[in-house]
């Protein structure tokens, strides 16, 4: 474990926990593949959330105990899951009616890049050797009422993921409302990236250096 006095920013688990705090009681939520999947573990006491997985389950529960999984009870990431009492199964057209018809309250997705006007790129680097694979991401950003992004603030090579304009192919234009990174919570606003909260031992300048585009400081009361 890293020392909380010197650790810069949040771990993946802490990021997931931070997002969970902001999800209102009673929400219908779709979690993307990767870090977003961790969020389900951190629902605050007293809240009930219903998880939707686009391959046909509303009321997705946690991972099964070792040896108790079923090959035909899986999530969108094709990992084995469980169904809560009160869950429902349905076919793909119904599942995407929930998504595209605006019936899901919130979706949390990973990102390759987010631009300061809320454009999201998360399905392809557009490289010549890349196998393009979009899954349900474009449907989710087009149809779900609120889109949160959870991502490391910079790439493994240290490049900003919060950018003026996305250089990777878009998943959708102007769709992201809030970004949770290891360094900060940031809202997408007409004026640019609006800092909402800094992670422990992180300064405004530290985040600005790692963000392309306008970063607005937390407003003073």
């Amino acid at each position, binding site marked *: 474990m890293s020392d909380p006095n010197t650790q810069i920013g949040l771990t993946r688990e802490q990021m997931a926990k931070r997002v969970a705090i902001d999800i209102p009681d009673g929400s219908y939520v779709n979690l993307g593949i990767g870090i977003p999947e961790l969020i389900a573990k951190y629902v605050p006491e007293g809240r009930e959330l219903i998880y939707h997985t686009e391959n046909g389950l509303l009321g997705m529960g946690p991972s099964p105990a070792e040896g108790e999984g079923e090959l*035909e009870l899986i999530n969108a990431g*094709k990992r084995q899951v469980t169904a809560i009492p009160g869950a429902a*199964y349905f*076919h793909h057209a119904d599942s995407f009616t929930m998504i595209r018809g605006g019936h899901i309250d919130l979706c949390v997705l990973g990102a390759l890049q987010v631009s300061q006007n809320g*454009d999201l790129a998360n399905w392809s680097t557009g490289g010549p050797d890349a196998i393009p694979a*979009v899954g*349900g991401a474009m449907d989710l950003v*087009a*149809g779900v009422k609120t889109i949160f992004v959870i991502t490391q603030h910079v790439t493994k090579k240290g490049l900003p993921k919060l950018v003026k304009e996305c250089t990777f192919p878009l998943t*959708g234009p102007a769709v992201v409302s809030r970004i949770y990174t290891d360094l900060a919570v940031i809202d997408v606003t007409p004026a640019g990236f609006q800092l909402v909260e800094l992670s422990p031992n992180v300064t405004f300048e530290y985040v600005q250096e790692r963000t392309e585009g306008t970063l607005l400081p937390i407003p003073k009361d």
Partner: protein
Amino acid sequence: MINKQVASAKDAVADIFDGATVMVGGFGEAGSPIELLHALIDQGATNLTVVNNNTGSGEVGLAALIKAGRVAKMICSYPRSVGSKVFPELYRSGKIELELVPQGTLAERIRAGGAGIPGFYTATSVGTPLADGKEQRKFGDREYVLEHGLTADFAIIKGRAADRYGNVVYNKTARNFAPIMATAAKVTIVQVADFVEAGDLDPEVIVTPGLFVQRVVTVPHPAFESQLNAQGVSYP
């Protein structure tokens, strides 16, 4: 008397012809009709256009059909799942065509095709490369892209149980694309673990009504991609 049961997977796929469009049920391995896919490989039809969310894993089922060189084109949303090796290699070497479709648009295209709807507008993919070259239209303040309904010559799907009328129920998240594919294909072939008497399935819970199904074949203990892959199986 109506009885859609056929004796074997081999008989069920016997008339799938070269150049056919075949919808294949399944999301990953959940709902993948492995035995029908293997029968199709044995049967030999080639130059197929296949509609599936993915491209299979390992060298069994859909991946084996692709590996055997029978598939000219895939229409799918996510061709590079974990364990998917066959498709990426062929795609990179230009030996297979890919029509990449957002998953919800794929589902709706199939649903529309089955309902006799030739096209529809959706907000999905507007402002992205996947809308390039497609007609767009504004409704209210929002842009939408025109997508076309999708139909097929055959659908091969997997259910849990069916009766002689072709009424089908499914197993959990193995349902996925199967019910809509059944509506969109001229000939729908379903493999089920249990063949039951007419009346045994509660009419209130039947998911696919029998008129959407032409053939039922019983496969009591269907195989799964992950299990075959763990055994190192490469079909045939």
